[in-house]
Protein backbone atom coordinates (compact mmCIF):
# COMPACT_ATOMS: atom_id res chain seq x y z
CA UNK A 1 0.00 0.00 0.00
CA UNK A 2 1.14 3.53 -0.74
CA UNK A 3 2.53 5.46 2.21
CA UNK A 4 3.37 9.06 2.92
CA UNK A 5 6.47 10.05 0.98
CA UNK A 6 8.81 12.74 2.18
CA UNK A 7 11.75 14.16 0.34
CA UNK A 8 14.55 14.57 0.78
CA UNK A 9 15.30 12.08 3.53
CA UNK A 10 18.37 13.98 4.65
CA UNK A 11 19.32 17.59 4.13
CA UNK A 12 22.32 19.59 5.25
CA UNK A 13 22.17 23.36 5.04
CA UNK A 14 24.25 26.21 6.32
CA UNK A 15 22.96 28.92 8.61
CA UNK A 16 20.88 31.57 6.89
CA UNK A 17 20.19 29.29 3.93
CA UNK A 18 16.76 28.18 2.75
CA UNK A 19 15.34 24.68 2.70
CA UNK A 20 12.25 23.18 1.11
CA UNK A 21 10.78 19.94 2.39
CA UNK A 22 8.23 18.04 0.39
CA UNK A 23 5.46 15.71 1.44
CA UNK A 24 3.31 13.50 -0.74
CA UNK A 25 0.30 12.20 1.19
CA UNK A 26 -1.42 8.89 0.78
CA UNK A 27 -3.74 9.03 -2.25
CA UNK A 28 -7.21 10.38 -1.41
CA UNK A 29 -6.03 11.79 1.90
CA UNK A 30 -7.22 15.37 2.25
CA UNK A 31 -5.31 16.50 5.33
CA UNK A 32 -1.59 17.04 5.78
CA UNK A 33 0.24 17.78 9.02
CA UNK A 34 3.79 18.93 9.63
CA UNK A 35 5.68 18.14 12.82
CA UNK A 36 9.14 19.03 14.07
CA UNK A 37 10.98 16.65 16.38
CA UNK A 38 14.17 17.88 17.96
CA UNK A 39 16.73 15.48 19.42
CA UNK A 40 15.18 13.63 22.35
CA UNK A 41 11.95 15.60 22.03
CA UNK A 42 8.37 14.69 21.27
CA UNK A 43 6.97 15.79 17.92
CA UNK A 44 5.76 19.38 17.93
CA UNK A 45 2.91 20.37 15.67
CA UNK A 46 3.81 23.05 13.14
CA UNK A 47 0.92 23.43 10.71
CA UNK A 48 -1.82 21.50 8.94
CA UNK A 49 -3.81 21.78 5.74
CA UNK A 50 -7.22 20.47 4.80
CA UNK A 51 -8.27 20.57 1.18
CA UNK A 52 -5.41 22.91 0.33
CA UNK A 53 -6.36 25.45 2.97
CA UNK A 54 -4.45 25.97 6.18
CA UNK A 55 -6.54 24.38 8.89
CA UNK A 56 -4.44 24.92 11.98
CA UNK A 57 -1.18 26.49 13.03
CA UNK A 58 1.06 25.46 15.87
CA UNK A 59 4.51 26.54 16.93
CA UNK A 60 5.73 27.36 13.45
CA UNK A 61 8.29 30.18 13.27
CA UNK A 62 7.57 33.14 11.03
CA UNK A 63 10.61 32.12 8.98
CA UNK A 64 8.73 29.01 7.93
CA UNK A 65 5.85 28.81 5.53
CA UNK A 66 3.95 25.96 4.00
CA UNK A 67 1.31 25.26 1.46
CA UNK A 68 -0.69 22.40 0.02
CA UNK A 69 -0.97 22.17 -3.73
CA UNK A 70 -3.78 21.07 -6.04
CA UNK A 71 -2.41 17.53 -6.12
CA UNK A 72 -2.48 17.56 -2.28
CA UNK A 73 1.26 17.42 -1.87
CA UNK A 74 2.65 19.90 0.60
CA UNK A 75 5.87 21.84 0.92
CA UNK A 76 7.43 23.32 4.02
CA UNK A 77 9.68 26.27 3.21
CA UNK A 78 12.23 27.27 5.78
CA UNK A 79 14.25 30.44 5.40
CA UNK A 80 17.09 32.07 7.35
CA UNK A 81 17.90 28.70 8.85
CA UNK A 82 19.27 28.59 12.37
CA UNK A 83 21.24 25.89 14.16
CA UNK A 84 18.18 25.22 16.30
CA UNK A 85 16.18 24.25 13.24
CA UNK A 86 18.15 21.01 13.08
CA UNK A 87 15.53 18.35 13.65
CA UNK A 88 13.51 15.58 12.12
CA UNK A 89 10.55 16.95 10.22
CA UNK A 90 7.58 14.65 9.85
CA UNK A 91 4.70 14.93 7.51
CA UNK A 92 1.54 12.99 8.17
CA UNK A 93 -1.68 12.62 6.22
CA UNK A 94 -5.19 11.52 6.99
CA UNK A 95 -8.64 11.54 5.49
CA UNK A 96 -11.43 13.22 7.33
CA UNK A 97 -14.02 12.51 4.67
CA UNK A 98 -13.44 8.77 4.82
CA UNK A 99 -13.58 8.81 8.62
CA UNK A 100 -10.11 7.34 8.49
CA UNK A 101 -8.89 8.95 11.61
CA UNK A 102 -5.39 7.61 11.80
CA UNK A 103 -2.61 9.91 10.74
CA UNK A 104 -0.03 8.05 8.72
CA UNK A 105 3.45 9.42 8.99
CA UNK A 106 6.19 9.65 6.44
CA UNK A 107 9.71 8.57 7.30
CA UNK A 108 10.72 12.13 8.00
CA UNK A 109 13.32 14.52 6.66
CA UNK A 110 16.36 14.93 8.83
CA UNK A 111 17.53 18.52 8.54
CA UNK A 112 20.97 19.44 9.80
CA UNK A 113 21.92 23.09 9.91
CA UNK A 114 25.65 23.74 10.19
Amino acid at each position, binding site marked *: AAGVIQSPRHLIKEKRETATLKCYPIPRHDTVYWYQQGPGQDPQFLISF*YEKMQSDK*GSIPDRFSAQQFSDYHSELNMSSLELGDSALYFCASSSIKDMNTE*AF*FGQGTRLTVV
Partner: protein
Amino acid sequence: AQTVTQSQPEMSVQEAETVTLSCTYDTSESDYYLFWYKQPPSRQMILVIRQEAYKQQNATENRFSVNFQKAAKSFSLKISDSQLGDAAMYFCAYRTRDDKIIFGKGTRLHILP
Protein backbone atom coordinates in the same frame (compact mmCIF):
# COMPACT_ATOMS: atom_id res chain seq x y z
CA ALA B 1 -6.21 23.31 25.69
CA GLN B 2 -5.70 19.61 25.46
CA THR B 3 -2.66 18.03 27.06
CA VAL B 4 -1.20 14.53 27.01
CA THR B 5 0.94 13.27 29.86
CA GLN B 6 3.20 10.25 29.89
CA SER B 7 4.68 9.97 33.35
CA GLN B 8 7.17 7.21 32.62
CA PRO B 9 10.17 8.48 30.65
CA GLU B 10 11.67 4.98 30.50
CA MET B 11 10.57 1.45 31.23
CA SER B 12 12.14 -1.97 30.96
CA VAL B 13 10.53 -5.36 30.63
CA GLN B 14 11.84 -8.87 30.32
CA GLU B 15 11.31 -10.54 26.98
CA ALA B 16 8.00 -12.48 26.88
CA GLU B 17 6.66 -10.54 29.84
CA THR B 18 3.84 -8.00 29.87
CA VAL B 19 4.31 -4.27 30.29
CA THR B 20 1.88 -1.38 30.63
CA LEU B 21 2.67 2.15 29.50
CA SER B 22 0.65 4.93 31.13
CA CYS B 23 -0.96 7.92 29.49
CA THR B 24 -3.35 10.51 30.83
CA TYR B 25 -4.88 13.40 28.99
CA ASP B 26 -6.93 16.47 29.65
CA THR B 27 -9.72 17.71 27.43
CA SER B 28 -13.13 19.29 27.54
CA GLU B 29 -14.20 17.57 24.34
CA SER B 30 -16.56 14.62 24.50
CA ASP B 31 -15.67 13.04 21.20
CA TYR B 32 -12.07 12.47 20.23
CA TYR B 33 -9.54 9.84 19.25
CA LEU B 34 -6.55 8.49 21.09
CA PHE B 35 -3.55 6.75 19.61
CA TRP B 36 -0.35 5.06 20.53
CA TYR B 37 2.54 5.51 18.12
CA LYS B 38 5.78 3.58 18.17
CA GLN B 39 9.03 5.21 17.13
CA PRO B 40 11.85 2.69 16.71
CA PRO B 41 15.50 3.73 16.30
CA SER B 42 14.80 4.40 12.62
CA ARG B 43 12.73 7.36 13.95
CA GLN B 44 9.74 6.45 11.80
CA MET B 45 6.37 6.97 13.47
CA ILE B 46 4.26 3.82 13.35
CA LEU B 47 0.66 3.64 14.49
CA VAL B 48 0.21 0.89 17.07
CA ILE B 49 -3.40 1.23 18.09
CA ARG B 50 -6.25 3.72 18.17
CA GLN B 51 -9.32 4.20 20.32
CA GLU B 52 -12.47 6.15 19.58
CA ALA B 53 -13.68 7.92 22.70
CA TYR B 54 -17.31 7.05 22.04
CA LYS B 55 -16.50 3.34 22.12
CA GLN B 56 -16.47 1.75 25.53
CA GLN B 57 -14.77 -1.40 24.32
CA ASN B 58 -11.01 -1.31 24.64
CA ALA B 59 -9.12 -1.56 21.35
CA THR B 60 -6.91 -4.58 20.72
CA GLU B 61 -4.36 -5.28 18.02
CA ASN B 62 -2.67 -8.65 18.43
CA ARG B 63 -0.31 -8.33 21.43
CA PHE B 64 -1.24 -4.69 21.98
CA SER B 65 -4.29 -3.60 23.91
CA VAL B 66 -5.42 -0.49 25.70
CA ASN B 67 -7.18 0.22 28.95
CA PHE B 68 -9.33 3.22 28.17
CA GLN B 69 -10.91 4.89 31.17
CA LYS B 70 -12.82 7.86 29.79
CA ALA B 71 -13.97 9.27 33.11
CA ALA B 72 -10.44 9.13 34.47
CA LYS B 73 -9.00 10.36 31.14
CA SER B 74 -6.57 7.50 31.14
CA PHE B 75 -5.34 5.55 28.12
CA SER B 76 -2.71 2.95 28.95
CA LEU B 77 -1.07 0.57 26.50
CA LYS B 78 -0.46 -3.05 27.41
CA ILE B 79 2.08 -5.05 25.47
CA SER B 80 1.84 -8.79 26.04
CA ASP B 81 4.58 -11.33 25.30
CA SER B 82 7.13 -8.55 24.78
CA GLN B 83 9.55 -9.06 21.94
CA LEU B 84 12.94 -7.53 21.24
CA GLY B 85 11.42 -5.70 18.27
CA ASP B 86 9.08 -3.86 20.61
CA ALA B 87 11.98 -1.78 21.91
CA ALA B 88 11.20 1.77 20.89
CA MET B 89 9.90 5.12 22.00
CA TYR B 90 6.14 5.05 22.48
CA PHE B 91 4.07 8.18 22.11
CA CYS B 92 0.54 8.58 23.34
CA ALA B 93 -1.41 10.99 21.14
CA TYR B 94 -4.74 12.79 21.19
CA ARG B 95 -6.54 14.01 18.10
CA THR B 96 -8.43 17.25 18.66
CA ARG B 97 -11.73 18.20 17.10
CA ASP B 98 -9.89 20.48 14.66
CA ASP B 99 -7.70 17.54 13.66
CA LYS B 100 -4.49 18.49 15.37
CA ILE B 101 -2.60 15.64 16.96
CA ILE B 102 -1.03 16.31 20.34
CA PHE B 103 1.71 14.01 21.57
CA GLY B 104 2.90 13.12 25.03
CA LYS B 105 6.61 13.30 25.84
CA GLY B 106 7.08 9.63 25.14
CA THR B 107 8.15 6.52 27.05
CA ARG B 108 11.29 4.71 26.01
CA LEU B 109 10.73 0.98 26.30
CA HIS B 110 13.68 -1.38 26.73
CA ILE B 111 13.27 -5.10 26.23
CA LEU B 112 15.65 -7.23 28.30
CA PRO B 113 16.65 -10.57 26.73
